Protein backbone atom coordinates (compact mmCIF):
# COMPACT_ATOMS: atom_id res chain seq x y z
CA UNK A 1 0.00 0.00 0.00
CA UNK A 2 1.18 3.56 -0.82
CA UNK A 3 0.44 6.33 1.62
CA UNK A 4 0.10 9.91 0.38
CA UNK A 5 0.01 12.92 2.69
CA UNK A 6 -1.92 15.97 1.44
CA UNK A 7 -1.70 19.40 3.06
CA UNK A 8 -3.68 22.44 1.94
CA UNK A 9 -5.50 25.05 4.01
CA UNK A 10 -8.41 24.78 1.60
CA UNK A 11 -10.64 21.75 2.29
CA UNK A 12 -12.16 21.91 -1.21
CA UNK A 13 -8.70 21.49 -2.70
CA UNK A 14 -8.10 18.47 -0.51
CA UNK A 15 -11.36 16.93 -1.66
CA UNK A 16 -10.60 17.59 -5.30
CA UNK A 17 -7.10 16.11 -4.91
CA UNK A 18 -8.56 13.05 -3.21
CA UNK A 19 -11.02 12.53 -6.05
CA UNK A 20 -8.26 12.96 -8.58
CA UNK A 21 -5.98 10.49 -6.79
CA UNK A 22 -8.87 8.04 -6.45
CA UNK A 23 -8.95 7.80 -10.23
CA UNK A 24 -5.50 6.18 -10.29
CA UNK A 25 -5.87 2.59 -11.38
CA UNK A 26 -4.16 0.27 -8.90
CA UNK A 27 -2.81 -1.53 -11.96
CA UNK A 28 -0.53 1.44 -12.58
CA UNK A 29 0.87 1.04 -9.09
CA UNK A 30 1.61 -2.64 -9.54
CA UNK A 31 -1.54 -3.56 -7.71
CA UNK A 32 -0.69 -1.55 -4.61
CA UNK A 33 -3.63 0.30 -3.04
CA UNK A 34 -3.44 4.02 -2.42
CA UNK A 35 -4.26 5.55 0.95
CA UNK A 36 -4.63 9.31 1.15
CA UNK A 37 -4.47 11.28 4.38
CA UNK A 38 -5.37 14.97 4.13
CA UNK A 39 -4.78 17.85 6.53
CA UNK A 40 -5.74 21.50 6.44
CA UNK A 41 -3.13 22.21 9.10
CA UNK A 42 0.58 21.62 8.45
CA UNK A 43 1.18 21.21 12.20
CA UNK A 44 -1.29 18.35 12.42
CA UNK A 45 0.22 16.78 9.32
CA UNK A 46 3.64 16.88 11.00
CA UNK A 47 2.20 15.36 14.16
CA UNK A 48 0.76 12.54 12.13
CA UNK A 49 4.08 12.09 10.31
CA UNK A 50 5.81 11.37 13.58
CA UNK A 51 3.86 8.15 13.87
CA UNK A 52 3.22 7.26 10.24
CA UNK A 53 5.61 6.95 7.31
CA UNK A 54 4.45 8.24 3.93
CA UNK A 55 5.50 7.48 0.38
CA UNK A 56 4.69 10.93 -1.01
CA UNK A 57 3.87 14.38 0.37
CA UNK A 58 1.92 16.98 -1.60
CA UNK A 59 1.66 20.40 0.01
CA UNK A 60 0.22 23.82 -0.78
CA UNK A 61 2.70 26.70 -0.66
CA UNK A 62 0.71 29.52 0.84
CA UNK A 63 -0.85 28.61 4.17
CA UNK A 64 -1.64 30.87 7.11
CA UNK A 65 0.53 29.44 9.88
CA UNK A 66 3.44 27.94 7.95
CA UNK A 67 4.34 28.05 4.27
CA UNK A 68 4.85 24.97 2.14
CA UNK A 69 8.66 25.17 2.18
CA UNK A 70 8.72 25.46 5.97
CA UNK A 71 6.40 22.51 6.22
CA UNK A 72 8.36 20.36 3.79
CA UNK A 73 11.64 21.27 5.52
CA UNK A 74 10.16 19.99 8.79
CA UNK A 75 8.88 16.94 6.95
CA UNK A 76 12.39 16.31 5.60
CA UNK A 77 13.68 16.16 9.15
CA UNK A 78 11.10 13.53 10.02
CA UNK A 79 11.16 11.46 6.84
CA UNK A 80 14.18 12.40 4.69
CA UNK A 81 13.47 9.95 1.88
CA UNK A 82 9.87 10.87 1.15
CA UNK A 83 9.41 12.59 -2.27
CA UNK A 84 8.05 16.10 -1.88
CA UNK A 85 5.64 17.92 -4.18
CA UNK A 86 4.17 21.39 -4.02
CA UNK A 87 0.84 22.15 -5.62
CA UNK A 88 0.23 25.88 -5.50
CA UNK A 89 -1.43 28.76 -7.29
CA UNK A 90 1.17 31.10 -5.91
CA UNK A 91 3.39 31.68 -8.89
CA UNK A 92 6.13 33.68 -7.21
CA UNK A 93 9.45 32.77 -8.79
CA UNK A 94 11.44 33.19 -5.58
CA UNK A 95 9.07 30.85 -3.78
CA UNK A 96 9.54 28.16 -6.40
CA UNK A 97 13.33 28.55 -6.38
CA UNK A 98 13.36 28.37 -2.57
CA UNK A 99 11.22 25.27 -2.72
CA UNK A 100 13.50 23.54 -5.20
CA UNK A 101 16.70 24.52 -3.42
CA UNK A 102 15.67 24.16 0.19
CA UNK A 103 13.56 21.04 0.15
CA UNK A 104 14.75 19.38 -3.07
CA UNK A 105 11.34 19.37 -4.56
CA UNK A 106 10.44 16.42 -6.75
CA UNK A 107 7.65 18.30 -8.56
CA UNK A 108 6.03 21.71 -8.59
CA UNK A 109 2.50 21.59 -9.89
CA UNK A 110 0.67 24.86 -10.45
CA UNK A 111 -2.93 25.48 -9.65
CA UNK A 112 -5.10 25.04 -11.56
CA UNK A 113 -3.60 21.67 -12.35
CA UNK A 114 -4.52 19.14 -15.01
CA UNK A 115 -5.61 15.90 -13.36
CA UNK A 116 -3.62 13.74 -15.77
CA UNK A 117 -0.40 15.68 -14.99
CA UNK A 118 -0.92 15.22 -11.29
CA UNK A 119 -1.75 11.55 -11.70
CA UNK A 120 1.29 10.85 -13.88
CA UNK A 121 3.57 12.71 -11.46
CA UNK A 122 2.19 10.77 -8.51
CA UNK A 123 2.46 7.45 -10.32
CA UNK A 124 5.99 8.30 -11.42
CA UNK A 125 7.08 9.14 -7.89
CA UNK A 126 5.41 6.14 -6.24
CA UNK A 127 6.10 3.36 -8.71
CA UNK A 128 9.07 1.12 -8.12
CA UNK A 129 11.74 2.70 -10.28
CA UNK A 130 10.05 6.05 -9.69
CA UNK A 131 10.94 8.82 -7.26
CA UNK A 132 11.64 7.24 -3.91
CA UNK A 133 12.97 3.97 -5.11
CA UNK A 134 14.90 5.73 -7.81
CA UNK A 135 16.50 8.14 -5.36
CA UNK A 136 17.69 5.26 -3.31
CA UNK A 137 18.79 3.36 -6.34
CA UNK A 138 20.63 6.25 -7.96
CA UNK A 139 23.12 6.32 -5.12
CA UNK A 140 23.83 2.71 -6.00
CA UNK A 141 23.71 3.41 -9.72
CA UNK A 142 26.75 5.65 -9.43
CA UNK A 143 28.72 2.75 -8.07
CA UNK A 144 27.28 0.62 -10.81
CA UNK A 145 28.35 3.12 -13.45
CA UNK A 146 31.91 3.19 -12.19
CA UNK A 147 31.97 -0.55 -12.07
CA UNK A 148 30.46 -0.60 -15.57
CA UNK A 149 27.58 -2.78 -14.51
CA UNK A 150 24.92 -0.50 -15.97
CA UNK A 151 23.25 -2.44 -18.67
CA UNK A 152 20.48 -0.06 -19.67
CA UNK A 153 20.13 3.74 -19.77
CA UNK A 154 16.91 5.43 -20.73
CA UNK A 155 15.15 8.74 -20.41
CA UNK A 156 11.86 8.72 -18.59
CA UNK A 157 8.77 10.81 -19.33
CA UNK A 158 10.05 13.98 -17.68
CA UNK A 159 13.49 13.81 -19.22
CA UNK A 160 15.29 12.42 -16.22
CA UNK A 161 17.86 9.78 -16.95
CA UNK A 162 16.90 6.46 -15.49
CA UNK A 163 19.70 4.06 -14.86
CA UNK A 164 18.77 0.44 -14.76
CA UNK A 165 20.86 -2.58 -14.50
CA UNK A 166 19.48 -6.01 -14.97
CA UNK A 167 20.27 -7.12 -11.49
CA UNK A 168 19.28 -3.86 -9.74
CA UNK A 169 15.56 -4.51 -9.76
Amino acid sequence: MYRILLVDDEPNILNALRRCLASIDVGELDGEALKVEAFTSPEQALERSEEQDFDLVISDYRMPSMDGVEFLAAMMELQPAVPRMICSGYADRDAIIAAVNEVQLARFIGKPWADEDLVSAVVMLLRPGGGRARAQRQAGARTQATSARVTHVEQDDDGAIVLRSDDAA
Partner: protein
Amino acid sequence: MSTAIALPAPREAAVRPVRGAPGAVCSDTMEATLRALVDAVPTATLLFDAAQNVRYANPAARVLAQLCAPEKGDRPLDVVRDWHPDLLSSGALHLCSMHGSWSGEVILGFGRGQHKILLVHLSRVGPELFGMTVRDITQDSARESELHARNAELEVAYARLQGAQEQVMQSEKLASIGQLAAGVAHEINNPIGYVNSNLSTLQRYISQLFSAIQSYEAALAGGAGAATTESIRQKLDLDFLAGDVPQLLSESREGIDRVCKIVRDLKDFARKERSEDWIQADLHRGLDSTLNIIWNELKYKAQIVKTFGELPQVECLPSELNQVFMNVLMNAGQAIKDHGIITVTTSVAGDRVRIDVGDDGEGIPADVLPRVFDPFFTTKPVGSGTGLGLAISYGIVSKHHGTIEISSTPGQGTLLRIELPVAQPR
Protein backbone atom coordinates in the same frame (compact mmCIF):
# COMPACT_ATOMS: atom_id res chain seq x y z
CA MET B 1 -6.75 126.03 -24.72
CA SER B 2 -6.53 124.26 -27.98
CA THR B 3 -5.23 126.10 -30.92
CA ALA B 4 -6.50 123.74 -33.58
CA ILE B 5 -4.11 125.27 -36.05
CA ALA B 6 -4.64 122.82 -38.82
CA LEU B 7 -8.36 122.84 -38.62
CA PRO B 8 -10.02 126.13 -39.09
CA ALA B 9 -13.53 126.83 -38.05
CA PRO B 10 -14.30 123.89 -35.87
CA ARG B 11 -14.71 125.94 -32.77
CA GLU B 12 -17.92 127.48 -33.77
CA ALA B 13 -19.39 124.17 -34.69
CA ALA B 14 -18.23 122.45 -31.63
CA VAL B 15 -19.79 124.85 -29.30
CA ARG B 16 -22.96 125.36 -31.15
CA PRO B 17 -25.12 122.87 -29.28
CA VAL B 18 -23.83 124.03 -25.94
CA ARG B 19 -24.38 127.60 -26.86
CA GLY B 20 -27.92 126.66 -27.72
CA ALA B 21 -28.63 125.68 -24.15
CA PRO B 22 -31.11 128.19 -22.82
CA GLY B 23 -30.43 130.62 -20.02
CA ALA B 24 -27.01 129.35 -19.09
CA VAL B 25 -25.37 132.28 -17.44
CA CYS B 26 -22.09 130.52 -17.00
CA SER B 27 -22.34 128.80 -20.37
CA ASP B 28 -19.19 130.48 -21.62
CA THR B 29 -17.20 129.27 -18.63
CA MET B 30 -18.73 125.85 -18.99
CA GLU B 31 -17.96 125.80 -22.69
CA ALA B 32 -14.37 126.68 -22.02
CA THR B 33 -14.13 123.99 -19.38
CA LEU B 34 -15.65 121.38 -21.65
CA ARG B 35 -13.35 122.35 -24.47
CA ALA B 36 -10.40 122.09 -22.14
CA LEU B 37 -11.62 118.68 -21.10
CA VAL B 38 -12.09 117.42 -24.63
CA ASP B 39 -8.75 118.84 -25.66
CA ALA B 40 -7.11 117.01 -22.82
CA VAL B 41 -8.71 113.64 -23.57
CA PRO B 42 -6.15 111.25 -25.13
CA THR B 43 -8.84 109.76 -27.32
CA ALA B 44 -9.14 111.31 -30.75
CA THR B 45 -12.41 113.24 -30.67
CA LEU B 46 -13.89 115.19 -33.54
CA LEU B 47 -17.05 116.75 -34.82
CA PHE B 48 -18.05 116.77 -38.44
CA ASP B 49 -21.11 117.47 -40.50
CA ALA B 50 -23.04 115.42 -43.02
CA ALA B 51 -20.58 116.40 -45.74
CA GLN B 52 -17.79 115.09 -43.48
CA ASN B 53 -16.34 118.54 -43.03
CA VAL B 54 -14.46 118.59 -39.77
CA ARG B 55 -15.82 121.19 -37.40
CA TYR B 56 -13.63 120.37 -34.48
CA ALA B 57 -10.77 118.04 -33.70
CA ASN B 58 -8.94 117.70 -30.42
CA PRO B 59 -5.12 117.34 -30.38
CA ALA B 60 -5.38 113.55 -30.21
CA ALA B 61 -7.53 113.66 -33.35
CA ARG B 62 -4.91 115.73 -35.10
CA VAL B 63 -2.27 113.22 -34.20
CA LEU B 64 -4.54 110.55 -35.64
CA ALA B 65 -5.04 112.61 -38.81
CA GLN B 66 -1.31 112.85 -39.31
CA LEU B 67 -0.91 109.20 -38.64
CA CYS B 68 -3.59 108.36 -41.19
CA ALA B 69 -2.25 110.58 -43.91
CA PRO B 70 1.36 111.37 -43.19
CA GLU B 71 2.00 112.23 -46.80
CA LYS B 72 -0.23 115.25 -46.44
CA GLY B 73 2.17 116.71 -43.95
CA ASP B 74 0.79 119.72 -42.15
CA ARG B 75 -1.88 120.34 -44.70
CA PRO B 76 -5.21 120.80 -43.09
CA LEU B 77 -7.40 117.75 -43.20
CA ASP B 78 -10.78 119.31 -43.45
CA VAL B 79 -12.69 116.33 -44.65
CA VAL B 80 -12.80 113.10 -42.72
CA ARG B 81 -12.78 110.83 -45.76
CA ASP B 82 -9.44 112.38 -46.72
CA TRP B 83 -7.86 111.07 -43.53
CA HIS B 84 -8.11 107.51 -44.63
CA PRO B 85 -10.60 105.91 -46.97
CA ASP B 86 -11.44 103.18 -44.47
CA LEU B 87 -11.76 105.29 -41.36
CA LEU B 88 -15.36 106.25 -41.81
CA SER B 89 -17.46 103.96 -43.91
CA SER B 90 -20.68 105.21 -45.41
CA GLY B 91 -22.43 102.23 -43.84
CA ALA B 92 -21.33 103.25 -40.37
CA LEU B 93 -22.42 106.78 -40.97
CA HIS B 94 -25.74 105.64 -42.31
CA LEU B 95 -26.34 103.39 -39.29
CA CYS B 96 -25.42 106.25 -37.01
CA SER B 97 -27.87 108.58 -38.70
CA MET B 98 -30.58 105.98 -38.29
CA HIS B 99 -29.90 104.78 -34.75
CA GLY B 100 -28.15 107.74 -33.22
CA SER B 101 -24.84 105.97 -32.69
CA TRP B 102 -22.47 103.34 -34.04
CA SER B 103 -19.48 101.58 -32.63
CA GLY B 104 -17.06 99.26 -34.23
CA GLU B 105 -13.53 98.24 -34.85
CA VAL B 106 -11.87 99.52 -37.96
CA ILE B 107 -8.67 98.18 -39.40
CA LEU B 108 -6.63 100.68 -41.34
CA GLY B 109 -3.94 99.45 -43.65
CA PHE B 110 -0.88 101.57 -44.31
CA GLY B 111 0.87 99.42 -46.84
CA ARG B 112 3.85 97.15 -46.26
CA GLY B 113 1.74 95.02 -43.91
CA GLN B 114 1.38 97.85 -41.46
CA HIS B 115 -2.00 98.27 -39.94
CA LYS B 116 -3.80 99.85 -37.05
CA ILE B 117 -6.82 98.61 -35.24
CA LEU B 118 -9.10 101.43 -34.15
CA LEU B 119 -12.14 101.43 -31.97
CA VAL B 120 -14.49 103.95 -33.51
CA HIS B 121 -17.56 105.35 -31.88
CA LEU B 122 -19.93 107.59 -33.82
CA SER B 123 -22.83 109.53 -32.39
CA ARG B 124 -25.29 111.94 -33.84
CA VAL B 125 -24.97 115.01 -31.66
CA GLY B 126 -27.26 117.32 -33.61
CA PRO B 127 -29.00 117.62 -36.92
CA GLU B 128 -26.35 117.10 -39.58
CA LEU B 129 -23.68 116.95 -36.92
CA PHE B 130 -21.74 113.91 -35.80
CA GLY B 131 -19.30 113.26 -33.01
CA MET B 132 -16.59 110.69 -33.42
CA THR B 133 -14.10 109.20 -31.03
CA VAL B 134 -11.30 106.97 -32.21
CA ARG B 135 -9.11 104.94 -29.95
CA ASP B 136 -6.07 103.09 -31.18
CA ILE B 137 -6.39 99.57 -29.84
CA THR B 138 -3.70 98.03 -32.03
CA GLN B 139 -1.51 97.36 -29.03
CA ASP B 140 -4.41 96.30 -26.83
CA SER B 141 -5.51 93.88 -29.45
CA ALA B 142 -1.98 92.61 -30.00
CA ARG B 143 -1.71 92.18 -26.26
CA GLU B 144 -5.07 90.52 -26.21
CA SER B 145 -4.18 88.04 -28.93
CA GLU B 146 -0.84 87.46 -27.22
CA LEU B 147 -2.79 86.82 -24.04
CA HIS B 148 -5.14 84.49 -25.88
CA ALA B 149 -2.20 82.59 -27.31
CA ARG B 150 -0.50 82.33 -23.91
CA ASN B 151 -3.78 81.29 -22.36
CA ALA B 152 -4.24 78.60 -24.95
CA GLU B 153 -0.70 77.38 -24.29
CA LEU B 154 -1.42 77.32 -20.57
CA GLU B 155 -4.62 75.43 -21.16
CA VAL B 156 -2.79 72.85 -23.22
CA ALA B 157 -0.08 72.57 -20.56
CA TYR B 158 -2.73 72.26 -17.85
CA ALA B 159 -4.56 69.56 -19.76
CA ARG B 160 -1.28 67.73 -20.23
CA LEU B 161 -0.48 68.08 -16.56
CA GLN B 162 -3.92 66.82 -15.66
CA GLY B 163 -3.46 63.91 -18.02
CA ALA B 164 -0.08 63.19 -16.49
CA GLN B 165 -1.50 63.37 -13.00
CA GLU B 166 -4.32 61.06 -13.96
CA GLN B 167 -1.77 58.72 -15.45
CA VAL B 168 0.36 58.78 -12.33
CA MET B 169 -2.69 58.07 -10.21
CA GLN B 170 -3.82 55.30 -12.46
CA SER B 171 -0.37 53.75 -12.56
CA GLU B 172 -0.11 53.99 -8.79
CA LYS B 173 -3.46 52.26 -8.60
CA LEU B 174 -2.23 49.60 -10.98
CA ALA B 175 1.00 49.32 -9.01
CA SER B 176 -0.96 48.62 -5.86
CA ILE B 177 -3.02 46.07 -7.76
CA GLY B 178 0.27 44.66 -9.04
CA GLN B 179 1.48 44.23 -5.51
CA LEU B 180 -1.71 42.39 -4.81
CA ALA B 181 -1.52 40.33 -7.95
CA ALA B 182 0.20 37.36 -6.36
CA GLY B 183 -2.38 37.21 -3.59
CA VAL B 184 -5.23 37.65 -6.03
CA ALA B 185 -3.79 35.05 -8.38
CA HIS B 186 -3.50 32.60 -5.52
CA GLU B 187 -7.01 33.36 -4.46
CA ILE B 188 -8.36 32.80 -7.96
CA ASN B 189 -6.17 29.81 -8.79
CA ASN B 190 -7.27 27.90 -5.73
CA PRO B 191 -10.98 27.73 -6.59
CA ILE B 192 -10.25 27.40 -10.31
CA GLY B 193 -7.91 24.56 -9.39
CA TYR B 194 -10.46 22.47 -7.60
CA VAL B 195 -13.37 23.36 -9.85
CA ASN B 196 -11.31 22.30 -12.84
CA SER B 197 -10.24 19.05 -11.20
CA ASN B 198 -13.79 18.39 -10.01
CA LEU B 199 -15.04 18.73 -13.58
CA SER B 200 -12.62 16.03 -14.70
CA THR B 201 -13.82 13.87 -11.85
CA LEU B 202 -17.43 14.54 -12.77
CA GLN B 203 -16.73 13.45 -16.33
CA ARG B 204 -15.41 10.18 -14.95
CA TYR B 205 -18.39 9.78 -12.65
CA ILE B 206 -20.80 10.35 -15.50
CA SER B 207 -19.21 7.70 -17.68
CA GLN B 208 -19.45 5.41 -14.67
CA LEU B 209 -23.14 6.23 -14.42
CA PHE B 210 -23.71 5.58 -18.09
CA SER B 211 -22.03 2.21 -17.87
CA ALA B 212 -24.22 1.50 -14.82
CA ILE B 213 -27.28 2.31 -16.91
CA GLN B 214 -26.08 0.03 -19.69
CA SER B 215 -25.40 -2.79 -17.22
CA TYR B 216 -28.85 -2.37 -15.70
CA GLU B 217 -30.46 -2.39 -19.15
CA ALA B 218 -28.62 -5.55 -20.02
CA ALA B 219 -29.57 -7.12 -16.67
CA LEU B 220 -33.22 -6.10 -17.17
CA ALA B 221 -33.29 -7.57 -20.67
CA GLY B 222 -31.81 -10.78 -19.30
CA GLY B 223 -34.42 -10.83 -16.55
CA ALA B 224 -31.77 -10.76 -13.87
CA GLY B 225 -32.66 -10.74 -10.20
CA ALA B 226 -31.80 -8.56 -7.23
CA ALA B 227 -28.41 -10.20 -6.77
CA THR B 228 -27.24 -9.01 -10.20
CA THR B 229 -28.39 -5.42 -9.73
CA GLU B 230 -26.71 -5.35 -6.34
CA SER B 231 -23.47 -6.56 -7.83
CA ILE B 232 -23.63 -3.84 -10.54
CA ARG B 233 -24.28 -1.33 -7.82
CA GLN B 234 -21.24 -2.41 -5.88
CA LYS B 235 -18.99 -2.84 -8.85
CA LEU B 236 -19.60 0.70 -10.06
CA ASP B 237 -19.52 2.17 -6.56
CA LEU B 238 -22.90 3.86 -7.05
CA ASP B 239 -23.42 4.51 -3.33
CA PHE B 240 -20.18 6.46 -3.27
CA LEU B 241 -21.17 8.44 -6.36
CA ALA B 242 -24.58 9.26 -4.91
CA GLY B 243 -22.84 10.78 -1.89
CA ASP B 244 -19.96 12.48 -3.64
CA VAL B 245 -21.67 14.05 -6.66
CA PRO B 246 -23.80 16.55 -4.69
CA GLN B 247 -20.79 17.44 -2.55
CA LEU B 248 -18.59 17.88 -5.60
CA LEU B 249 -21.19 20.12 -7.21
CA SER B 250 -21.73 22.30 -4.18
CA GLU B 251 -17.99 22.71 -3.63
CA SER B 252 -17.52 23.64 -7.27
CA ARG B 253 -20.35 26.13 -7.11
CA GLU B 254 -18.76 27.69 -4.05
CA GLY B 255 -15.50 27.96 -5.99
CA ILE B 256 -17.15 29.73 -8.90
CA ASP B 257 -18.91 32.11 -6.51
CA ARG B 258 -15.59 32.94 -4.92
CA VAL B 259 -13.97 33.74 -8.24
CA CYS B 260 -16.94 35.92 -9.21
CA LYS B 261 -16.67 37.79 -5.96
CA ILE B 262 -12.95 38.44 -6.36
CA VAL B 263 -13.46 39.70 -9.88
CA ARG B 264 -16.33 41.92 -8.74
CA ASP B 265 -14.23 43.37 -5.93
CA LEU B 266 -11.36 44.02 -8.30
CA LYS B 267 -13.70 45.74 -10.73
CA ASP B 268 -15.15 47.85 -7.93
CA PHE B 269 -11.70 48.83 -6.91
CA ALA B 270 -10.10 49.45 -10.27
CA ARG B 271 -13.00 51.26 -11.90
CA LYS B 272 -11.80 54.49 -13.41
CA GLU B 273 -14.27 57.25 -12.78
CA ARG B 274 -14.49 60.51 -14.54
CA SER B 275 -13.24 63.08 -12.08
CA GLU B 276 -16.59 64.86 -11.94
CA ASP B 277 -18.46 61.80 -10.70
CA TRP B 278 -19.10 63.04 -7.19
CA ILE B 279 -21.75 60.84 -5.66
CA GLN B 280 -23.28 60.08 -2.33
CA ALA B 281 -21.66 56.85 -1.27
CA ASP B 282 -21.51 54.43 1.59
CA LEU B 283 -17.87 54.44 2.68
CA HIS B 284 -18.31 51.10 4.42
CA ARG B 285 -18.97 49.49 1.06
CA GLY B 286 -15.72 50.85 -0.32
CA LEU B 287 -13.83 49.80 2.80
CA ASP B 288 -15.32 46.32 2.59
CA SER B 289 -14.54 45.76 -1.08
CA THR B 290 -11.01 47.07 -0.54
CA LEU B 291 -10.60 44.86 2.51
CA ASN B 292 -11.85 41.90 0.49
CA ILE B 293 -9.16 42.37 -2.12
CA ILE B 294 -6.39 43.06 0.32
CA TRP B 295 -7.50 40.25 2.58
CA ASN B 296 -5.96 37.80 0.13
CA GLU B 297 -2.67 39.44 0.95
CA LEU B 298 -3.20 40.10 4.62
CA LYS B 299 -4.81 36.91 5.86
CA TYR B 300 -1.47 35.18 6.19
CA LYS B 301 -0.13 37.74 8.62
CA ALA B 302 -2.81 39.89 10.14
CA GLN B 303 -6.09 39.77 11.89
CA ILE B 304 -8.45 42.58 10.95
CA VAL B 305 -10.68 44.11 13.57
CA LYS B 306 -13.48 46.14 12.01
CA THR B 307 -15.43 48.53 14.20
CA PHE B 308 -17.85 50.28 11.90
CA GLY B 309 -20.01 53.05 13.35
CA GLU B 310 -23.16 54.48 11.80
CA LEU B 311 -21.99 56.58 8.87
CA PRO B 312 -24.13 58.86 6.74
CA GLN B 313 -23.71 58.78 2.97
CA VAL B 314 -20.68 60.85 2.08
CA GLU B 315 -20.31 62.99 -1.01
CA CYS B 316 -17.16 61.66 -2.61
CA LEU B 317 -15.34 60.01 -5.49
CA PRO B 318 -15.65 56.43 -4.24
CA SER B 319 -13.00 54.77 -6.39
CA GLU B 320 -10.45 57.42 -5.44
CA LEU B 321 -11.23 56.89 -1.77
CA ASN B 322 -10.90 53.13 -2.31
CA GLN B 323 -7.40 53.82 -3.51
CA VAL B 324 -6.68 55.74 -0.31
CA PHE B 325 -8.04 52.86 1.77
CA MET B 326 -5.96 50.42 -0.24
CA ASN B 327 -2.74 52.40 0.26
CA VAL B 328 -3.34 52.86 3.93
CA LEU B 329 -4.27 49.20 4.51
CA MET B 330 -1.31 47.96 2.46
CA ASN B 331 1.01 50.13 4.53
CA ALA B 332 -0.54 48.78 7.71
CA GLY B 333 -0.03 45.24 6.44
CA GLN B 334 3.55 45.92 5.41
CA ALA B 335 4.32 47.43 8.82
CA ILE B 336 3.52 44.08 10.38
CA LYS B 337 6.47 41.73 10.24
CA ASP B 338 5.05 38.35 11.23
CA HIS B 339 1.66 38.48 12.82
CA GLY B 340 -0.35 41.41 14.01
CA ILE B 341 -3.65 43.19 14.23
CA ILE B 342 -5.02 45.84 11.91
CA THR B 343 -7.91 47.90 13.20
CA VAL B 344 -10.36 49.73 10.96
CA THR B 345 -12.68 52.05 12.86
CA THR B 346 -15.25 54.47 11.50
CA SER B 347 -17.13 57.15 13.35
CA VAL B 348 -18.86 60.49 12.94
CA ALA B 349 -17.36 63.71 14.31
CA GLY B 350 -19.77 66.61 13.78
CA ASP B 351 -20.29 67.09 10.07
CA ARG B 352 -17.30 64.94 9.25
CA VAL B 353 -16.72 61.22 9.13
CA ARG B 354 -13.59 59.67 10.51
CA ILE B 355 -11.79 56.54 9.35
CA ASP B 356 -9.01 55.29 11.61
CA VAL B 357 -6.64 52.59 10.43
CA GLY B 358 -4.27 51.28 13.05
CA ASP B 359 -1.66 48.57 13.14
CA ASP B 360 0.57 47.12 15.82
CA GLY B 361 3.52 46.85 13.47
CA GLU B 362 6.98 48.34 13.40
CA GLY B 363 5.98 51.98 13.66
CA ILE B 364 7.66 54.89 11.91
CA PRO B 365 10.78 56.61 13.30
CA ALA B 366 10.28 60.27 14.27
CA ASP B 367 12.71 61.52 11.62
CA VAL B 368 10.83 59.70 8.87
CA LEU B 369 7.32 60.61 10.02
CA PRO B 370 7.26 64.18 8.59
CA ARG B 371 8.24 62.89 5.16
CA VAL B 372 5.74 60.08 4.68
CA PHE B 373 3.42 62.23 2.56
CA ASP B 374 6.26 63.45 0.31
CA PRO B 375 6.04 62.18 -3.25
CA PHE B 376 8.59 59.50 -4.07
CA PHE B 377 9.55 59.10 -0.44
CA THR B 378 9.75 55.42 0.36
CA THR B 379 11.53 53.23 2.83
CA LYS B 380 10.58 50.12 0.93
CA PRO B 381 13.14 48.31 -1.18
CA VAL B 382 13.41 49.43 -4.81
CA GLY B 383 10.62 47.98 -6.86
CA SER B 384 8.20 47.25 -4.07
CA GLY B 385 6.84 50.75 -3.56
CA THR B 386 6.43 53.76 -5.79
CA GLY B 387 6.71 56.21 -2.93
CA LEU B 388 3.54 57.78 -4.24
CA GLY B 389 0.93 55.91 -2.23
CA LEU B 390 0.56 58.32 0.65
CA ALA B 391 1.31 61.39 -1.48
CA ILE B 392 -1.56 60.45 -3.77
CA SER B 393 -3.75 59.57 -0.79
CA TYR B 394 -3.02 62.99 0.64
CA GLY B 395 -3.98 64.59 -2.66
CA ILE B 396 -7.22 62.65 -2.88
CA VAL B 397 -8.23 63.44 0.69
CA SER B 398 -7.40 67.15 0.17
CA LYS B 399 -9.53 67.15 -2.96
CA HIS B 400 -12.35 65.93 -0.71
CA HIS B 401 -11.62 68.84 1.67
CA GLY B 402 -10.62 66.32 4.28
CA THR B 403 -7.53 65.73 6.36
CA ILE B 404 -5.20 62.81 6.77
CA GLU B 405 -2.99 62.56 9.83
CA ILE B 406 -0.51 60.03 10.97
CA SER B 407 0.88 59.26 14.39
CA SER B 408 3.28 56.51 15.21
CA THR B 409 5.32 55.02 18.00
CA PRO B 410 8.27 52.95 16.82
CA GLY B 411 7.89 49.39 18.03
CA GLN B 412 4.25 49.83 18.94
CA GLY B 413 2.43 50.73 15.79
CA THR B 414 0.90 53.44 13.67
CA LEU B 415 -2.47 55.15 13.54
CA LEU B 416 -3.68 56.89 10.46
CA ARG B 417 -6.73 59.11 10.72
CA ILE B 418 -8.71 60.27 7.73
CA GLU B 419 -11.46 62.85 8.19
CA LEU B 420 -13.83 63.74 5.40
CA PRO B 421 -16.70 66.23 5.29
CA VAL B 422 -20.08 64.59 4.74
CA ALA B 423 -20.92 67.22 2.13
CA GLN B 424 -18.52 69.11 -0.09
CA PRO B 425 -18.50 72.90 0.29
CA ARG B 426 -20.41 74.64 -2.50
